[in-house]
């Protein structure tokens, strides 16, 4: 599935992550900005990719600005962005969560 429109979720507050999803055609491509990138960059990318895959999204450009978010926060914010991008419900898909 592809994203239909650009969508954003999350804030730049500490312990949060801001996810922007936009159309892409080269698989899931993640541009990550994080102060803990060296230590946790791969893990953050994995959580984002896994969450998007669970929604059936195979192609998307992801801009992620991380302010020290935990995995559960990354997942929740990615879910919210995905649903907005897919123009589905405004509520998270609890089964994915």
């Amino acid at each position, binding site marked *: 599935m592809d994203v239909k429109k650009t969508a954003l979720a*999350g*804030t*730049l*507050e*500490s*312990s*949060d992550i801001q996810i922007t999803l936009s159309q892409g055609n080269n698989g899931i491509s993640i541009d990550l900005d994080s*102060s*803990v990138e060296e*230590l*946790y960059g791969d893990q953050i990318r994995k959580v984002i990719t896994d969450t998007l895959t669970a929604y059936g999204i195979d192609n998307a450009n992801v801009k992620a600005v991380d302010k*020290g978010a*935990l995995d*559960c*926060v990354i997942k*929740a*914010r990615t879910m919210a962005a995905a649903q907005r991008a897919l123009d589905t419900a405004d509520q*998270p898909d609890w089964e994915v969560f």
Partner: protein
Amino acid sequence: MQTIFDHGKYQDIIAVLQNKDERVAVQNQLLKCNPSMTVVAAKLNIPGPIKNNSEIESFFAAGLSKFEEILLETGFNFICKKEWLDKDTGPERFYLVQASAIEIKACTSRFEELKPSYRLFDLDVLTNNNGVIKVLSRSDADQPARKCLICGRPAKECGRSRRHSVEDLQRKVSILISTNLLQCEKEKMANWLTQLALQALLYEVSAWPKPGLVDPVEHGAHLDMDIFTFINSSVSLRNYLHQAALIGTMSRSDDLSLLFEELREYGKRAEKKMFSVTDNVNTHKGAIFSLGVIVTAVGYSLQHLQKFDPDNIQTIIKHMLVNLINDDLKHLEQKEYLTAGEKQYLKYGLSGIRGEAHAGYPTVFKYGLPTLLTSVGDWNSRILMTFLELALHIEDSTLIKRAGTLTIQQWKNKEIKECLSLGGIETEAGWKKLNEIEKKFSQQNLSLGGTADLLIVTIFLGLVKEGMPDGF
């Protein structure tokens, strides 16, 4: 171990994230409507699922009043624009401040370093740069990254890896907050005692008629002062009384004579200040001593017992003043200038107020306070009844000084007993007698200055006792 986290509502991730969205919306709105102002968004970093409860909320409010003091002292004007103090996701407050982000960041840094517990505060500084909202980060202000509460590594690393258990983090936070709240309680107690001490000074001078003393109606025995001199004097002592209260409520020492030495230095400064606002008239010299001692002693007693215990207060006073007689009345022969009390010690062997103080103010605790606490009617009546009782049982050095003879004591006691036997101020005859006594004192230029000091401390003790919650 009990922590402050044994109550409060668990917050899930969705609630916390929704709150972040709301916070950002508020911040953006404030910056949009006030583009020339800087926003300070204040919140707490509380690890774990419980983000708010009564302790957390009190801690937040008390901490921010210190932050506001910093802004006030720096001269940065601010408006508290929005707040949610009891929200389950944690207390937050938003300020609009008229200063640049970097200047305000200096204030927030100063605040965070003020007390160990203030590192739990998270004060974000935000500006609107032509429509672009910018958060001043710690590194923008040359501040090191936040360190972990437990191990001192960068906080983000420990948070990300969940290196420490929620229980460990909560235990640490609980200690920080509890310690701070205890300190706040003591500060509140000191402010309360200061206010009551000032009230006691003003209550005493306001009661009428008081033979040999200044009251709002007459001051025939003290032509060099009036009620206004006393108001000036009382108000000038506020700072001193607060110092006395702080010594008592805060002291970690068990060397009580040291507390007194410290108090005495403050007392000397307070005397100077008093003389400067009274045209060098002695209004409250004795009160500076006695009220200072009692305020300190009450503060110390409340700090340790959390209830009003007259015996304990007396014991503390005795320990504070253990060296008083020896230090003060030992080498009088060599002194060039002697006070009334010192002269009388040499002349009559009377230890005066020093003796009374040294013994833990027995006249106050045995006669004054019980009379005040059992008295009925308005404050004027209660104070006068207490005044008569004290005057009857005290060796008033001011009276002896003015009269120049010890026999004045017998005359004074006869007059007061007569007034009391007529029913005191409760009856018309007693009231008339009291007015007559006042005239006699004025005509003969006699004073009951020593009694006034004890009356002030008795009123103070009565106000404390009656102001304590029931059962304390």
